[in-house]
């Protein structure tokens, strides 16, 4: 899987997080970014945008991060796309939980917009 990380899809129910993540990943990381506001359209957005990686918020109303992840895995387009969770709760036990689910990493909120790209890149390189 020696691919380059170019396209990232961000899924979060909060507009201000989506916006800062987009700017941060684009301006600092040079990635191509698509945003998905809320979990509902995550699967269809993954099919349309075909990201290399999905940054997925955990706490979302209606369908939360882990459930969205499960849906992605069931879908054709999203079955193999690596996922990084984003969450405010980052106790080691929780991180292990998300990794056990199949995520390649966990980013803690609030994140530093200057290092977000690097964090994700490192997770991608180590996957």
């Amino acid at each position, binding site marked *: 899987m020696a691919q380059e990380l170019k396209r990232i899809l961000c899924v979060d129910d909060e507009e*201000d*997080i989506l*916006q*800062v993540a987009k700017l*941060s990943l684009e301006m*600092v990381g040079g990635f191509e970014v698509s945003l998905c506001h809320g979990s509902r359209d995550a699967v269809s957005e993954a099919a349309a945008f075909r990201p290399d990686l999905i940054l997925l918020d955990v706490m979302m109303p209606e369908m939360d991060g882990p459930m969205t992840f499960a849906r992605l895995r069931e879908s054709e387009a999203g079955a193999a796309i690596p996922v990084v969770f984003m969450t*405010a709760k980052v106790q080691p036990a929780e991180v292990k939980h998300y990794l056990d689910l199949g995520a390649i990493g966990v980013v803690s*909120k609030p994140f530093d*917009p*200057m290092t977000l790209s690097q964090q994700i890149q490192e997770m991608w390189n180590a996957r």
Partner: protein
Amino acid sequence: MNPNDLLKPLRGMYLAQLRERSESVAAFLRHCRGGRVRDDERDVMLRQAHKLAGSGTTYGFPLITQTARALEEALGDPASEPAVLIPLTESLLHTCEQVLLSVERGAEGSLAGVGDPSAADLRPVLLNADDDPMIRELVQALFKDDFRVVTAHDGAEALHLVAEHKPHLILLDEIMPGMTGIEVLEKMRADESLRDIPVVMLTAKAQSSDVVRAVSAGAVDYIAKPFDPAELATKVRALLRRSGKTVLVADDDPAIRDLLAYKFRLAGLRVITAPDGEEALRQAALHRPDLAILDRMMPGLDGVAVLQQLRANPETRALPVVFLTAMRQERDILEGFRLGVADYVIKPFLPEEVLARGLRLLGLGAEAA
């Protein structure tokens, strides 16, 4: 790239959100003060606190994350009562309001840094004019923690920067190509608004003729090159304390006295402290401070009594006073203003707020520069 470049375009959106969320926090505070909090109200506040915590630091407001998290944790316990929730909610609301106020006032051009005590730049400005880059670097290294250091490569640039930044102190090299340090000093002396800025001349030699020349041109002190960095640092700090303003901090809580004294000293002011009202009046008469920060509730002579006596004495009548008070009832606040207090800070306070209000009253704030 710095975080500012990234965050500036998002500022409007973040602040609009913050305004809305602040109102939500204020509404919750009202519910708590009403005595009972419904489960649905608690849930709403929990979600808001979570969101505030999750974005505060990202946008440059770690204090918002900190205070929101504290409230979020308390709310996470379904048995937590209003008595516990109220101070945490007040703290969060205060922090959000501080941020909104500071940004609206345009105190800082950047979004990042407001509300973050370590980043708010209320340090005094030091201008260093020298054509030698090693000296400029040395000065920067020596003083960057206590001052905001601005550098100029020659006399012309120095004059330009003096007008722009109104530094609190200038380190001026005597020998520079083009305009010399003496010429810069003479130009400054001719300008009323620049005349009083203390200048330390860095002279090539320590012969009496050099010293006389520097002092006649208006320098308040000199140091010969090559100089001992420690000696320069000592001179500069002593100078700033002498030529700066004095603030009196009176509070019966030694922790508050020490904290505020530290903050004001760091900003370049001279500080005198008093543990009670009587001592405050004695210090005020003796040292004639330019500003007084008074705790309103002190045993013995309280803040109000001190204020009344200050006003009654023609020598201290014009001394601006800032009250620190836990009383936030409208009538108490109005009473204070009626008695002549210049400003109010409600406890629990952010020391930076006290400093900012104090500097503003002294005409030393960022806005006044």
